[in-house]
């Protein structure tokens, strides 16, 4: 079954396993989410569920969006997101989705919005190597040559150059679930997750087939 939930990054820490291994974990507040709409092939041409997460004030939303919540019969939510599912019939509007859709040891993909880094040079942005700092060298963090000569007499499209870095949607695949606490809606995932603390996250079961 497809498992998906919307959450919020709370921070990182370290936990110890019984055998003494230290595991770096990200603490995520996952859900509770509520199903706001079910998309079916007959009506929408595709199959998905739409869920909402987090409370918000009515004033923060526009009338059309409020109308959507009113139709679903749920209180306004801060985030709305659709997830493709194979079995939309299993869900109904108003149904609550909690962290217990995941279990310990399961492999998940986590999507977030990475921290914006601003305009960055080629060393940080693309990991190009730097020149040496001393011995009269004046090429420290420059990109070097960016192309050939009379042919093609232009710079290739997609050439790695300085520019805006970060602030995009990033998915980290194949993270394992360390702990699920459905009482406090907390999910512990091994490793780091994109974005700052309090950033929104989408957690789904791993797209890549389990080995």
């Amino acid at each position, binding site marked *: 079954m497809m498992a998906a939930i919307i959450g919020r990054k709370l921070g*990182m820490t370290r936990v*110890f396993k019984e055998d003494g291994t*230290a595991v770096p974990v990200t603490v995520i*507040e996952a859900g509770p989410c509520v199903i706001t709409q079910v998309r079916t092939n007959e009506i929408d041409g595709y199959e998905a569920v739409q869920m909402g997460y987090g409370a918000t004030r009515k004033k923060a939303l526009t009338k059309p969006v409020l109308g959507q919540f009113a139709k679903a019969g749920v209180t306004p939510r801060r985030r709305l997101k659709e997830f493709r599912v194979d079995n939309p019939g299993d869900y109904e509007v108003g149904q609550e989705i909690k962290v217990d859709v995941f279990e310990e040891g399961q492999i998940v993909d986590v999507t977030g919005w990475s921290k914006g880094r601003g305009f960055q040079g080629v060393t940080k942005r693309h990991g190009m190597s730097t020149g040496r700092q001393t011995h009269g060298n004046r090429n420290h963090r420059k990109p070097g040559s960016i192309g050939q000569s009379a042919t093609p007499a232009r710079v290739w499209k997609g050439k790695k150059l300085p520019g805006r870095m970060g602030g995009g949607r990033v998915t980290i695949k194949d993270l394992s679930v360390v702990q699920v606490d459905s009482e*406090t809606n907390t999910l*512990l995932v091994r490793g780091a997750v994109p974005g700052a603390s309090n950033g929104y996250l989408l957690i789904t079961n791993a797209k890549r087939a389990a080995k």
Partner: protein
Amino acid sequence: MNDRVREIERGHTREDVPEFAVSDTVRVHVRIREGDKERTQAFEGTVIARQGTGPNETFTVRRVAQGIGVERVFPVSSPNVQQIVVTRHGKARRAKLYYLRKRTGKAAKTKARDLR
């Protein structure tokens, strides 16, 4: 830090740690796995550094064994660290005793603390 993260850290932080500070001599009982067998090994030396908080707290123990300096870093809250015994209280005027690495013999000793 978020309260819920703090709550999780509390569950993974050891509370029964004896009071020990940099410059003290401690014996650390470490659980070691050899294949299927488990046994405890002791490592005794001078604490030359202590850093971090909560489950991330670690300390560095230095000893000179057979003329070779050996340093081991232990996480305070690791289940592998079974027991920490303070065998001698030392006295130091700084938080990190890395200068001991350059010293040998008598100069590498920390002063004993008067426990009154």
